[in-house]
């Protein structure tokens, strides 16, 4: 996924500007020459300068590189990436309610089915073993309080 430097440069420029404007609202530290705004200001200015440079170089090469080049990625691959992202987003959204075991199982199983183009049952088996092993290792051995959720009782280990 190649994005023209000019577009990214513009984004970096705006980001730098936003950082700079926000940093100007920080109050000075009494009696000190430099306050909490110093480093963000330097970062913001640096990002704006670099962003400008990228806009210029990207604009010069726009005929060669185009704006956004996604020709190397087939539609199926987009769905693969979407599946991976949705698995994480879904886990974040559902873990507190479903608990780690159920949310983790879905976040492992569904992308696996998508990546392997099928194999529903063997994927379910792999995902189930993975999630139960993690639940045992992290919750009961390493004592990480994984989200319990309201749907399942606590597993026996």
């Amino acid at each position, binding site marked *: *996924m190649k994005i023209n430097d000019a577009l990214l440069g513009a984004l970096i420029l705006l980001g730098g500007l936003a*950082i700079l404007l926000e940093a100007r609202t920080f109050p000075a530290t009494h009696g000190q020459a430099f306050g909490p705004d110093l480093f963000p200001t330097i970062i913001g200015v640096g990002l704006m300068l670099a962003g400008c440079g990228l806009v210029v170089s990207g604009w010069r090469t726009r005929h060669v590189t185009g704006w956004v080049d996604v020709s190397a*990625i087939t539609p199926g691959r987009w769905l693969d*990436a979407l599946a991976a992202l949705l698995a*994480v987003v879904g*886990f974040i959204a559902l*873990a507190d309610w479903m608990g780690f075991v159920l949310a983790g199982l879905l976040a492992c199983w569904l992308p696996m089915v998508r*990546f392997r183009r099928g194999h529903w049952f063997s994927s379910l088996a792999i995902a189930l073993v993975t999630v139960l092993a*993690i639940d045992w290792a992290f919750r009961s051995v390493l004592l990480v309080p994984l989200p319990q959720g309201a749907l399942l009782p606590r597993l026996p280990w």
Partner: protein
Amino acid sequence: MSDTLGAAFSLVFDPHVLLVMLAAGAFGLFVGAMPGLTATLATALLVPVTFFMDPVPALAAIVATTAMAIFAGDLPGALLRIPGTPASAAYVDDAYRLTLQGRSGLALGTGLICSVIGGLVGAAILAFAAPALAEVALAFSTFEYFWLATFGLTCAAFVSTGRPVKGFVSLLFGLFIATIGIDIMAGQPRFTLGSVELMGGVSFIPAMIGMFAVSEVLRWALGTTGGRDAALVAQPQARELVRPSLRAIGRYRTGVARGSLIGTAIGILPGAGADIAAWISYAVSKKMSNTPEKFGTGHVEGLVDSGAANNASLGGAWVPALVFGIPGDSITAIVIGILYMKGMNPGPMVMINQPELLYAVFIAFFVANLLLLPLGWLAIRSFGQMLRVPRGALMPVILILCMVGAFAINNTLFGVIIMLVLGVIAFVMEENGFPVAPAILGLVLGSMIERNFMQSMIKADGNLLAFFERPLAAAIGGVTVAIWLLVAVGAVRRWRRAAGGVTG
């Protein structure tokens, strides 16, 4: 001294620690041998597990994993022409052409033995340089630390691959992430967007898991790294593994020494790791060779140099990490995160308070590199089986481990959100030629630079010239400023030439 060494030996030669190293080594070999999974990713995946270990097994596990993973990257490089980790990319053409000539045993045997030698040299230099440098570092004040961290960032931005301006953006991005949260000097909340969770700042570990692991999964899913469904050409022949390899190494023994030394030196430089070490020593080897025209056609000489260099850089990278708390590469950036979590602030005081711990790390390096010989041999023999693990099943398992790891740091789902956001950003960055290592360094060193700057300015009452008043500070500062000037002059020249080219 001998007491400390004895204590360190008994710390490492504990059955539990050795078992951990063996398991970590097998894990490292597997991850390194899988195309698209890097040594840094292996370290990131180890993090949640190491949190609950004692310091010595935790560090020994990382040392063993990375030493194995860097070698294992040669396996798919030689047999499939897909480097298993970026550190094997420099010489992948030579290795693969050897395989096509039916000499994969030579390619892999040379790679394995050179990796072991390089790793041992790197470990030896680490064991001598770290204590010596720590003595010097005891005299450092906030002024020196400020310059040292700034020097590290400078190296990271300009030594990295790709265009310097992109390295610079990456660095600033990392520094920006480090400013998020309550400011340490004035207590001012910065860029928290009203979120209570962001008040405490962005924790390194979820950030690094996202930037290394999640971005890798995305890259795999979109198929932008080659070899999504690779098939093996030929199994390596065992009879070529030992004798022809030893003969080749004997012929190019200066190359082994050169690669090991260059690799260690590049490892010590902040921000440059095994991949850059391999590229540079491959180039040096070609330049010094009597037969440079043979490089890239299945010639073993470049393999010798860079095979030693990438493993040597691992030991080198621990030097600044242990002595100054400045990571030498992205692996040691994660190590520093782990050390902080364990309540050990990396720096010269570790040398005084817990010297046995440092010596244990050195010994672990030697043990790991010696273990590499038998384990690497087994890995060469069983690579075909490893490759049968379907990647489509492996990636979701990696993803779920990442989520649990990011969760386990503060036991909140917020860590998983940080992991996701930074993973997507790192993916877009790498796809467009922005190196990720400078961002990691910025993230790790950002608060160190700012804290040392502010403390120095309180001491010096706002007088900036104080940064050049102490001789050591002036020296490190002078070098850093000189690099900036050189880069600026170079950029202006290039820009002028480019402008001249367009108008004229």
